[in-house]
């Protein structure tokens, strides 16, 4: 938020906001324009509060709260205001109640330096994280591949981010570039939030799509938006790993995920990135029946087996077979089992190179990297690359002899798909989403909990050239779904008015 607001700005800002919602609540542009010239702000506010009182619905209370507070409300705040409005005795009394209900929120966390713009009946896509940060792994890759295609096809939509986690706003030009023109070498890569006069955005009766997993701070506001605002909320559902595999993630992740689910249950539709992920979200949707909630419709829309458009192809340059392990460094990805299998095979005298790619918490990568360093001193060809740019990763996929990804739980498994798209066979897990990808060929499926199975699989691909040829032939025969296919499918799904 700008650090300076002129003393006389608040009444003007409030008036603009009240006029904006007046148009929605009375559903009459002309009346709002006429009122703008004549009525006092107090009269306008009394009119909209009285209207919200007469309508008696949560949507009106949600909208009135948002306009007065300069922040999206949480569920209990919507309910409290709706009840206060219903108990009020007149339009002025309703407005007084609305002021009382929003007073502390407006002053403690409200955004007050800009006008709000109501978006009505539009398609609105939340790209908050991708807009603000340079990070670009699985989820961010999906967002950028999808949104950039929609923009180039001139799909009508508005992109939004969050202003101080309080209310949605339009993107700064630099943020738009970071989402839509990620590969543009000339764009500004500074992550510091800029001071700007972009409008705050209040969606109403919109198709809202949430393609990212939101920060915990906004989950309650999203729950209220999904439950009360009248917007139709669609979500890209990645997985339920923090819940289903809570034993593999930090406890804090599971707590955050539970907050996230509190908003998922009020959403309308979830587009899950694999059949396995769809199963997890359907399970959750059926569970909330115990709370008397319908839960979202869940659709399977699998991610593609494709490489990002900007990635170049590379010829294999490695003289020694390269075994590639890609993924953030965490217990769930099972990097330890791969290192164990590699150690056994090096001891057997097999000659190959092992490269790990992926960042992770230093408490995990530190000890692992020290072990890798000790193995290198013994003469083994192993390294862990923690910061790899897209072009380097593309070169590694194309150069690798095999990719190994025996993850214990995935929503999809982009490293499997990207390796196959680069023509490189994959050793991966024999269940869940990775097994789905592998079912079309090019993969050797193993039980990731069985160290012997991983070792045997790696030995087989390193020693049986005919088998490797058969895997490569399977890859050539695969019918590859592309990012363009995925982007089309998601757009059509979000726009669809029919239950699917």
């Amino acid at each position, binding site marked *: 938020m700008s650090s300076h607001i002129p003393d006389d700005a608040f009444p003007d800002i409030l008036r603009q906001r009240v006029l904006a919602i007046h148009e929605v609540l009375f559903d009459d542009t002309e009346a709002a324009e006429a009122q703008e010239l004549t009525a006092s702000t107090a009269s306008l506010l009394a009119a909209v509060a009285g209207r919200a009182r007469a309508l008696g619905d949560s949507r009106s209370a949600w909208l009135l709260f948002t306009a007065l507070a300069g922040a999206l409300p949480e569920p209990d705040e919507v309910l409290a205001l709706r009840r206060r409005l219903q108990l009020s005795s007149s339009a002025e009394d309703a407005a007084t109640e609305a002021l009382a209900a929003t007073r*502390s929120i407006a002053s403690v966390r409200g955004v007050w330096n800009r006008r709000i713009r109501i978006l009505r009946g539009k398609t609105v896509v939340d790209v908050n994280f991708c807009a603000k940060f340079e990070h670009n792994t699985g989820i961010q890759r999906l967002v950028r591949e999808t949104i950039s295609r929609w923009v180039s096809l001139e799909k009508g939509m508005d992109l939004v981010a969050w202003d101080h986690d309080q209310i949605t706003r339009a993107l700064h030009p630099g943020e738009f570039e970071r989402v839509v023109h990620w590969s543009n070498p000339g764009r500004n890569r500074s992550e510091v939030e800029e001071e700007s006069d972009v409008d705050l955005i209040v969606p109403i009766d919109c198709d809202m799509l949430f393609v990212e997993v939101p920060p915990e701070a906004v989950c309650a506001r999203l729950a209220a938006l999904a439950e009360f605002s009248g917007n139709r909320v669609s979500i890209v559902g990645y997985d339920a790993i923090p819940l289903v595999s809570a034993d593999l993630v930090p406890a804090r992740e599971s707590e955050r995920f539970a907050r996230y689910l509190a908003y998922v249950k009020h959403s309308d539709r979830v587009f899950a990135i694999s059949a396995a992920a769809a199963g997890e979200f359907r399970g959750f949707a059926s569970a909330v029946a115990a709370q008397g909630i319908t839960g979202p419709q869940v659709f399977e829309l699998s991610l593609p087996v494709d490489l990002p458009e900007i990635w170049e192809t590379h010829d294999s340059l490695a003289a020694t077979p390269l075994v590639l392990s890609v993924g953030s460094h965490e217990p769930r990805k099972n990097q330890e089992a791969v290192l164990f299998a590699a150690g056994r095979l090096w001891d057997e005298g097999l000659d190959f190179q092992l490269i790990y790619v992926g960042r992770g918490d230093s408490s995990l990568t530190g000890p692992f990297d020290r072990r890798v360093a000790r193995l290198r001193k013994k003469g083994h060809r192993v390294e862990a690359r923690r910061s790899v740019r897209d072009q380097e990763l593309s070169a590694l996929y194309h150069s690798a002899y095999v990719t190994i990804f025996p993850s214990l739980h995935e929503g999809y498994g982009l490293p499997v798909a990207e390796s196959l798209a680069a023509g490189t066979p994959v050793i991966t897990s024999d269940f869940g989403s990775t097994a789905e990808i592998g079912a079309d060929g090019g993969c050797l499926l193993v039980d990731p909990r069985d160290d012997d199975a991983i070792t045997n699989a790696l030995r087989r691909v390193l020693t049986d050239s005919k088998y490797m040829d058969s895997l490569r032939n399977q890859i050539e025969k695969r019918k590859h779904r592309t990012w363009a296919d995925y982007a089309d499918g998601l757009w059509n799904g979000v726009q669809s008015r029919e239950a699917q």
Partner: protein
Amino acid sequence: MISNTGRHDVTQSTPRTLSGRPSEQAQFEAELASWLDFVSRATRKRLRLEKLITARGILKPVTLAQRFVIKSREVGFIPTVKLVNTRLRQMKQSDQ
């Protein structure tokens, strides 16, 4: 309307009806003025604090804003600079 004692007092200068009671609309206009005064003063104070803390380089702006909101909601009112700085130091220590 805020009186010298800081209490909300709508009777001091609010237009009155012939019966001597302030009209409902006039009363509401006073409520609104009071609300705007409170919100604007509190918001400006909050922004000054955010600017001050950012200028001291304690936290990056985005993180700062998130944590400031947490702090504000914990105490239920606009905290002093000293209170915020104390809490931010505690948060930094707990992060490490």
